[in-house]
């Protein structure tokens, strides 16, 4: 038995009848330019195809004008990136990059067959799409891309830090070419969007963001997971028509990155007065402001989120801890009291109150009372959830014991002084 016969007999997974697929190939190649708008580019590594589109920078994509991006100040970019260094990122010197690939699993066998690059030039926004029409055209396309990137010092991507850029770097390495991605800034909009919208939106995928933030509806788009098979089919039959939606998809992704950036900038700029930000987002905004040391803005946002479904509990806790950290004790105390009253994480609030009374005010009566209530609360929770919160109980008992010990010591000194002024409000329903 010959090797080729064996292979076919034992290892083939192909349905046996279908054999003449190759005959389907007709001469589509000439029309590639007409259908996809590609032009051929020559490089020392051979030819590759390119699609060039130019939009006026006043182009509106999803209710937002592209050139509004120029208005974003360094202060705001810092917040979007959640990193002080990004103040100097200049969107005129940045490229927006998005790739379409042959598989989502990654690994060195995955090819980025379409690399879309968007950038501002004069009064227009240009989108260049480097198309690798077959494997042997890759080096040429990478070479051209590398030349283009020399003009820019920043990258903007959506999930590029963990997907597009490492994948392209691998492609450069396999082609034995130097990677052009060693740039000063790389703004990954996915992590920025996740920070901002994860509480409100179920998904922070680009299409979800487009629908929810930009009220954008794509027409003639293709779902991402179908893209690899469309490309493989093109390699087999050279029919360019099914590729059209892929090129469109890639262009839309790039335009959306621009307007998403603007939308997020608005949220940071006018948090209380914008359409880019609502409800649960205020908690997220508060967190970014807090982490970036912008306390007043943070408090304003948290206050907005205090009564918002879904983030109510964590906003209360977060804001009270911020007050505590800032030494704004009265505001903190008021918030904890309110939490107990409204039954918002009362055990957390009671423990914080107990700590506050014990360590700050040295008012052991009130501290003991708060700790006692916290303990009762945990017991009650136990009977509700049906399992034992053992650690918490041990912890609380220890606290209570310590407070009582101190209480005894100072008993003689101050007896009636600090009775619990708002006792009534502190009972648990």
């Amino acid at each position: 038995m010959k090797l080729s016969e064996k292979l076919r007999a034992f290892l083939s997974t192909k349905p046996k009848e279908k054999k003449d697929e190759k005959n389907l190939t007709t001469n589509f190649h000439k029309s590639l330019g007409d259908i996809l708008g590609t032009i051929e580019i020559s490089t020392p590594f051979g030819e590759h195809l390119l699609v060039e589109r130019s939009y006026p920078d006043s182009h509106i994509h999803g209710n937002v004008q592209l050139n509004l991006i120029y208005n974003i100040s360094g202060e705001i970019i810092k917040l979007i990136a959640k990193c002080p260094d990004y103040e100097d990122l200049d969107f005129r010197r940045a490229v927006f990059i998005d790739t379409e690939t042959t598989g989502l699993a990654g690994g060195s066998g995955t090819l980025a067959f379409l690399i879309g690059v968007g950038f501002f030039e004069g009064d227009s926004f240009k989108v260049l799409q480097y198309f690798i029409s077959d494997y042997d055209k890759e080096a040429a396309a990478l070479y051209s891309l590398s030349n283009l990137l020399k003009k820019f010092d920043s990258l903007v991507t959506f999930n590029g830090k963990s997907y597009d850029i490492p994948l392209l770097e691998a492609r450069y390495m396999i082609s034995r070419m130097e990677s052009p991605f060693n740039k000063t800034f790389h703004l990954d909009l996915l992590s920025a969007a996740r920070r901002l919208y994860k509480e409100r939106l179920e998904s922070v995928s680009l299409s979800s963001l487009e629908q929810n933030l930009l009220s954008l509806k794509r027409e003639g788009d293709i779902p991402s997971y179908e893209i690899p098979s469309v490309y493989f089919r093109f390699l087999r039959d050279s029919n360019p028509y099914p590729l059209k939606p892929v090129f469109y998809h890639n262009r839309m992704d790039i335009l959306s990155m621009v307007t998403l950036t603007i939308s997020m900038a608005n949220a940071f700029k006018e948090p209380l007065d914008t359409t880019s930000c609502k409800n649960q987002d205020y908690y997220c905004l508060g967190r970014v402001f807090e982490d970036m040391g912008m306390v007043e803005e943070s408090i304003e946002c948290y206050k907005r989120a205090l009564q918002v479904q879904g983030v109510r509990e964590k906003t209360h806790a977060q804001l009270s801890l911020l007050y505590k950290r800032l030494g704004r004790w009265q505001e903190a105390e008021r918030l904890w009291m309110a939490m107990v009253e409204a039954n918002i994480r009362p055990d957390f609030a009671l423990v914080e109150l107990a700590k506050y009374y014990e360590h700050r005010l040295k008012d052991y009566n009130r501290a003991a009372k708060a700790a006692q209530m916290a303990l009762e609360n945990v017991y009650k929770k136990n009977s509700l959830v049906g399992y034992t919160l053992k650690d918490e109980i041990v912890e609380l008992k220890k606290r209570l014991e310590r407070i009582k010990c101190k209480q005894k010591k100072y008993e003689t000194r101050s007896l009636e002084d600090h009775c619990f002024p708002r006792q009534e409000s502190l009972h648990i329903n």
Partner: protein
Amino acid sequence: MNLEQVLDQLRTQERFYKNITHWEVVSESSGRYEDFPEYLNPKLIKALNKKGIYRLYSHQRRALDEVMTGHDITVVTPTASGKSLCYNLPVLNTLLSDKDARAIYLFPTKALSQDQVSELMELVDDMDANIKTFTYDGDTPVNARVAIRKDGHIVVTNPDMLHTGILPHHTKWMKLFTNLKYIVIDEVHIYRGIFGSHTANVLRRLRRICNFYGSNPVFICCSATIANPGELSEKLTGKPAVLIDENGAPAGEKNIIFYNPPVVNRQLGIRRSSLLEAKALASKFLNNKIQTITFARSRLAVEVLLTYLQEDMKKLPGGTNLVRGYRGGYLPKERREIEKGLREGKILGVVSTNALELGIDIGNLDASIITGYPGSVASTWQQAGRAGRRNSVSASILVASSSPLDQFIINHPEYFFDATPEYGLINPDNLYILVSHIKCAAFELPFSDGETFGDQPINEILAFLEDEGILRHVGGRWHWMAESFPAEDISLRSASAENFVIIDITEGAKVIGEVDRSSAPMLIHEEAIYIHAGQQYQVEKLDYEEKKAYVRKVNVDYYTDANLAVEIKVLDMFREKTVANSQNYLGEVMVTSLATMFKKIKFFTHENLGFGPIHLPPEEMHTTAYWISIPENTGGLSIEEIKSGLLGLCNVMVNIAPLYLMCDPKDIRGVVQIKSPFTQKPTIFIYDNFPGGVGFAEKLYTMEDQLLKAARQVILECDCEDGCPSCVGPHEEVGHGSKDFALKIIKGVLSD
């Protein structure tokens, strides 16, 4: 009593000595030493001094010298001979002077790699050098991975991780591959059969990637004693290596005792349980405070033995904690604690599966008891090697079970002590395995026209894969053209990724085990009684498409036995020769097996309680086979007699072939044809039970009349009257008189 005194008792007490079939005393040997070479880094010497090492064993020095001159090596030394220094010395010496140099250490299991890393780290700490060693396996946290890729000087991993985690992402490991100087492969003898054939291909891929990044690493392999360590490591790495097999480590006197439990039922050939005998022997040692390791063949047996021994220890101070169990499934922390306890002598006894056979550091114990022949000479020596100090007496006792292989070994100690140990066999060019890895390799880097894979020309395979729509041939290169990630679908540990999962639905649904595809029709057809960890289950539903069997706990007094109709068709003959009066062949076959019906058989009485049909499609397997045909009139036997004799002979041959092949008895199968369509004569086929074959049949073909002679010995020396499971098989299966007919056939063939 000390060990010598206990051994004296074994020699004199009838309870024991009448069961001893052989007592070998390996006299003590003094070590052969060499000084540190001048080129060895003073920091390294200082660190070694700190560990009390002032000179090297001769094999360590030789390994160091060979590697430092750029030669690949294969080191063969017994347990506890300072093997890890053979690779740690050259690697560390290089890393001390070259900060960019990198090394990969491959171990077959995770537990082993952890143990080696801690030993290596100690040495590195003592040198006060900036050499970073990391384990990279499935447990490595994602955030640590980036640092390992960039800064790890020594990356400790296993072939599976190399296969799915490292090679397909080689660009992220550029620094490692560009500077790779050494690849250390420890426990080379484990890489045999399917696993070895896969690993050889993973290493072909590794060398291809190294070549891309311009590195050409030296391979350092270490193996236990097998017949062909050099050949195995060369097949594995694809490179010739210098063989270093003279052990320079000293060893104390060693007693190796073969012990056969007494026969309790002669007719059925049943002996007293090896487990109970092992327990009696282990108790004797332990009660005399002699540190003892007891090996058992299954996890269940470990637990049973452990329970018995702990019961016995209750009266000693320290009690049940003196004896511990050790096996897969114990948590890493617990294992570390047991290893430490053994090293420090706080734990007196341990009962283990072969998990402790490999190079995990538990120090050296006084005695080892091996319950049941571990399946190979190499494993037996490894397990025996767990007992043995440099300068005092030690003892190892092999307690045989009643399986044919055990009985053969225990009655033929010369096979164990004199004959060459088994061959580690692999077949990197197994078509199924080869094609799988060519896919992975194409994913990693496109193939160029005319490129070979290892030493294999692969143009036809590439063309086939293009035809399958997986590769695209353009511009003189073959590119991966599929969405899938090929490495993920290929398991290195089994021939196909197609195991059947067994799900216990007694309460909820719990996966309790797996059965490979070829055994599924026999073991988990509907209504079959499936026994797992001592518990009976009945198969309620077999979902053949989804490869799932749903079982429920039952308690019945019978087991089931399926009839399997096996047909074998010769596809291709590679070689043919005449051996005495038989004709021997090697070739490719198609095995079609069909489970037809099953019987319910009552425990103990073996009454047939009824039967039922099995409705499953036939299984086809394309593999390699060895077959032997004999003249129709051999021994003047009738057709019926020939049939019965051949069936018996085939059973014996399949059962003892592992003596030479280093495989599990179920890795090969036998079929008998009275008038084979291919040879037109009575024929025994023995085939590799893996698609494509892994080299067993090939080895059997080269053995001339050795296997027949060994089979004759087994049959002649078996005490049973008319066939038993220890020789030709029970007469229900092979017919009355099989023992006699088989002997006549052998006589007719060998005419000696």
